[in-house]
């Protein structure tokens, strides 16, 4: 059977691939079919019926959004009959729609406004008895059922892309409404994607509601600065008050082809306002002259990292960034087996995949976009999702087809077991063969608590799948056996049809690890901290000796989990000093920070492209035209895979450093709208082991630090591992995320 279907739309010869619908083909060929409920990233809602078309020889209308063409048909997308049909549908949409465009948040960018005008609905001949519909307050989201046109986009996105499955349609003809699913009030991760897709003003951000209009806001296309996904977004700014300076009012995204989590959507006000402080600047120069090292985080642009690297070369100081250093080591070990500098998969690859294995990351909170990609794969391709982690995650429950629980610290053993299973029939080299033969499977299975049957079940579910992705994450970088884990993952990638996605911790961990040479952090004197601890602190947070701009106030680029170099833009002005100003004093002389963009190291895959030539948008057909993809760089294959070390045991009370939904770091902690829940969450078993009760004030004493927290009993958790948020105090990246800790009740 041929895979190309030839047919005609309005007399024009067009071709469809297998599985494409008439609407998709029409759009691809720039033929316009009006729609109201269609959204490209989900399956068709088919609720509006405006996309109806006529097919020669077929009675009645056909929905173009969910009908695939057959060979040789002749489709008509415009006719008098269709025009009448579509106009009537628009009239029905307008029945009793409140005439509050004057105050509605959506006015000016409303699909209903646009389509009503497009079909020139000047009078109304339908009517229905109006009903009292109360505005619902769902926390960050506000729902006005009177404005709702029941297109069902929100429900489809919530279920198919996000995976919260938190809202549903309450069917009832004219009185249909959107309701929280199985709950009195909305219980979800507050990604706000329903707000984005809503074509009218029914679902809006509570914070934004009635504060500004679409036409007053200036749009600044940029990249989200919270996690390694680097999602595209638009900051919308306007003057604040009648004399005030500019503020970010809201964040929007290209919801047609991409998504955004709640941290990006609601956590936009992390800017740092400062004026030029000459004395502090002099102090900073003095501190840099005397410095032994600069300690910094990965929440930084590539250009600034390059400046730091140049400072290192010039002043002979050290650079500390444990997070990026460990990631770099992990990637180096990976490269030494795979022969490539960058991992092979991307979030798009996950969306296309039909089998995903996740190990060593609580992915739903570490990187929500990867979770959305996995959910999309699971809903659209029926992907088998194997989620392996010591802790079950409620957010992954409805997506994961199999949960493999392994013991804390036994990641190396789990990957070895996985490699052993997947490489069974592969044509592997002698070293790898020897390694696999040496494995003591019984010991590994016993210690990691991953049964042979679980691995077999996984293997069996892969029997009909073709596109596989292995996702590794931040539990592994600081693992004692990180390098061997990386090598084993590389082995799987090399010899099976698995592609590999390694999810970095922070927004630009990948970029930092590529651009600068980092030193092992040690306690020295005279450390200048950049958004990190030090004797002199340059920071965009509070308690800075010299104020620095936050990532929504700078131009620059970051490298995201897809190995794409993405541009950030200035949403809000920063009046203080920049890192570049400091560098200028040391004869590292470029007028603007972004002049370094084209100088990023080409031996690491960066291209010689100036910042101003970087695009940042999605094309009308959904092509991602943002920044550029790092070039493939080949490396020398040299490594020998070490035998698996004895698997460690974590007994007693273990604390897992893991942030709640929508929180990532001190910047998200600074924002107004995001919930800041800093309690330690643990199961009843944990409480019993630690001898604490629900609501107790406690101290967590681990290797390096003592943290004060409140304890909260969580029924959804099991075992003796508790979840400790670190967004307010900062992640200790040099340590494995699971820490044996002593819990003391504070009286």
């Amino acid at each position, binding site marked *: 059977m041929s895979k190309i279907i030839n047919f005609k739309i309005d007399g024009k010869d067009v071709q469809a691939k297998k599985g494409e619908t008439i609407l998709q083909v029409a759009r691809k060929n720039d033929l316009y079919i009006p729609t109201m409920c269609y959204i490209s990233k989900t399956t068709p809602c088919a609720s509006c019926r405006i996309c109806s078309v006529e097919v020669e020889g077929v009675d009645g209308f056909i929905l173009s959004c969910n009908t695939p063409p057959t060979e040789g048909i002749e489709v008509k997308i415009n006719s008098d009959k269709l025009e009448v049909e579509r106009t009537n549908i628009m009239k029905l949409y307008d029945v009793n729609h409140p005439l509050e465009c004057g*105050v509605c948040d959506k*006015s000016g960018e409303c699909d209903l406004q646009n389509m009503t005008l497009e079909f020139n609905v000047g009078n109304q001949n339908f009517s229905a008895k109006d009903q009292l519909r109360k505005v619902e307050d769902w926390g960050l989201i506000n729902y006005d059922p009177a404005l709702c046109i029941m297109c069902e986009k929100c429900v489809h996105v919530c279920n198919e892309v996000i995976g919260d499955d938190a809202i549903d349609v309450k069917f009832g003809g004219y009185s249909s409404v959107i309701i929280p699913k199985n709950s009195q009030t909305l219980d979800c991760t507050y990604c706000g994607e329903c707000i984005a897709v809503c074509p009218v003003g029914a679902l809006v951000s509570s914070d934004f*509601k009635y*504060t500004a209009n679409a036409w007053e806001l200036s749009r600044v296309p940029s990249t989200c600065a919270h996690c390694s996904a680097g999602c595209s977004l638009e900051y919308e700014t306007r003057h604040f008050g009648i004399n005030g300076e500019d503020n970010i009012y809201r964040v929007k995204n290209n919801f047609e082809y991409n998504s955004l989590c709640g941290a990006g959507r609601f956590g936009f006000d992390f800017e740092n306002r400062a004026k030029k402080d000459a004395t502090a600047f002099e102090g900073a120069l003095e501190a840099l002259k005397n410095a032994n090292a600069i300690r910094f985080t990965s929440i930084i642009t590539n250009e600034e990292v390059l400046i730091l690297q140049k400072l290192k070369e010039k002043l002979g100081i050290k650079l500390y960034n444990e997070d990026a250093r460990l990631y770099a080591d992990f990637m180096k070990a990976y490269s030494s087996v795979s022969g490539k500098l960058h991992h092979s998969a991307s979030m798009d690859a996950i969306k296309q995949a039909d089998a995903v294995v996740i190990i060593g990351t609580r992915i739903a909170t570490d990187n929500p976009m990867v979770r959305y990609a996995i959910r999309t794969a699971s809903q659209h391709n029926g992907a088998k999702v194997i989620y392996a982690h010591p802790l079950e995650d409620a957010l992954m429950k409805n997506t994961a087809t199999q949960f493999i629980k392994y013991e804390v610290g036994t990641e190396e053993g789990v990957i070895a077991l996985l490699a052993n299973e997947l490489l069974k029939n592969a044509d592997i080299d002698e070293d790898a063969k020897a390694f696999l033969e040496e494995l003591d499977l019984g010991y590994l299975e016993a210690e990691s608590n991953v049964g042979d049957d679980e691995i077999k079940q996984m293997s069996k579910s892969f029997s009909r799948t073709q596109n596989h992705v292995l996702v590794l994450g931040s539990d592994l970088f600081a693992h004692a056996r990180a390098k061997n884990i990386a090598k084993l993952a590389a082995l799987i990638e090399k010899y099976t049809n698995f592609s590999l996605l390694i999810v970095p911790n922070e927004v630009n961990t990948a970029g930092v690890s590529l651009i600068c040479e980092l030193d092992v952090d040690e306690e020295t004197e005279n450390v200048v901290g950049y958004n990190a601890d030090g004797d002199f602190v340059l920071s965009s947070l509070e308690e800075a000796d010299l104020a620095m701009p936050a990532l929504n106030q700078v131009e620059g680029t970051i490298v995201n989990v897809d190995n794409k170099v993405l541009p950030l833009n200035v949403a809000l002005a920063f009046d203080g000093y920049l890192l570049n100003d400091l560098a200028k004093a040391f004869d590292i002389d470029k007028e603007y920070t972004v002049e370094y963009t084209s100088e990023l190291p080409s031996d690491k895959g960066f291209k010689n492209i100036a910042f101003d030539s970087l695009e940042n948008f999605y094309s009308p057909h959904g092509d991602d035209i943002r920044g550029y993809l790092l070039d493939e760089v080949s490396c020398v294959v040299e490594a020998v895979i070490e035998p698996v070390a004895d698997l460690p045991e974590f007994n007693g009370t273990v604390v897992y450093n893991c942030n709640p939904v929508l929180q990532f770091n001190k910047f998200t902690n600074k924002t107004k709208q995001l919930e800041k829940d800093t309690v330690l969450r643990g199961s009843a078993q944990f409480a019993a082991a630690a001898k604490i009760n629900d609501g107790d004030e406690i101290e967590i004493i681990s290797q390096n630090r003592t943290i004060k927290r409140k304890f909260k009993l969580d029924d959804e958790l099991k075992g003796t591992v508790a979840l400790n948020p670190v967004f307010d105090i900062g992640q200790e990246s040099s340590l494995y995320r699971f820490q044996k800790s002593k819990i003391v009740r504070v009286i």
Partner: protein
Amino acid sequence: MKMEAFNDRNVADNGYFLVDIEDYPTDGWGKFKRVVRRSFKGELFVGLWVVLREMIKFDIHTVQYPEEKMPIGPRYRAVHEMKRLWESDAERCIGCGLCEKICISDCIRMDTKIDENSRKEVTEYTINLGRCIFCGYCAEVCPELAITHGGEYEQASEQREHFVDYEYMLTPIDTMKAKAQKEFEGFGAITPHEDERVKKTPLAY
């Protein structure tokens, strides 16, 4: 007077005549003589007498501004006013922001928020009259006939803020209670018989 008199361009036949102007003196002696002649002729007192005569008669024809003011046309575009609703005395402004957007001299600024009744509330509203060119676009675009121009054209005050305050522009509640609010008839106002032209939504129930 008929229009023909104006349209008749034939000046020669209508009693027009050339004024006999003596030649300008060319030498110093001639100029001296002219000065002496003009100074002692008493021409000056002709004008002074006209003023004195009118003063004594107390028959004054000019408007005694600022005690007296000329009535201005209903469409005159002076300092803006904010109107209230006849039905409820509530402010008409819904905070849609169209006046702010359309203002070509960028002198309107407003800020809105959601109030406790889930309605849009205007929290701040100013017009910088130093920039305003009184074009009337704001009044024309206003969907609620809330902002209009008024007849207050005097723009002198000790305080600049006197003119840009929302409270200053808003119809005082006493005036409203006395049903004394005047509708603006100029730019942006409802045309007569608007009611008859409005199409209604069918309500079958």
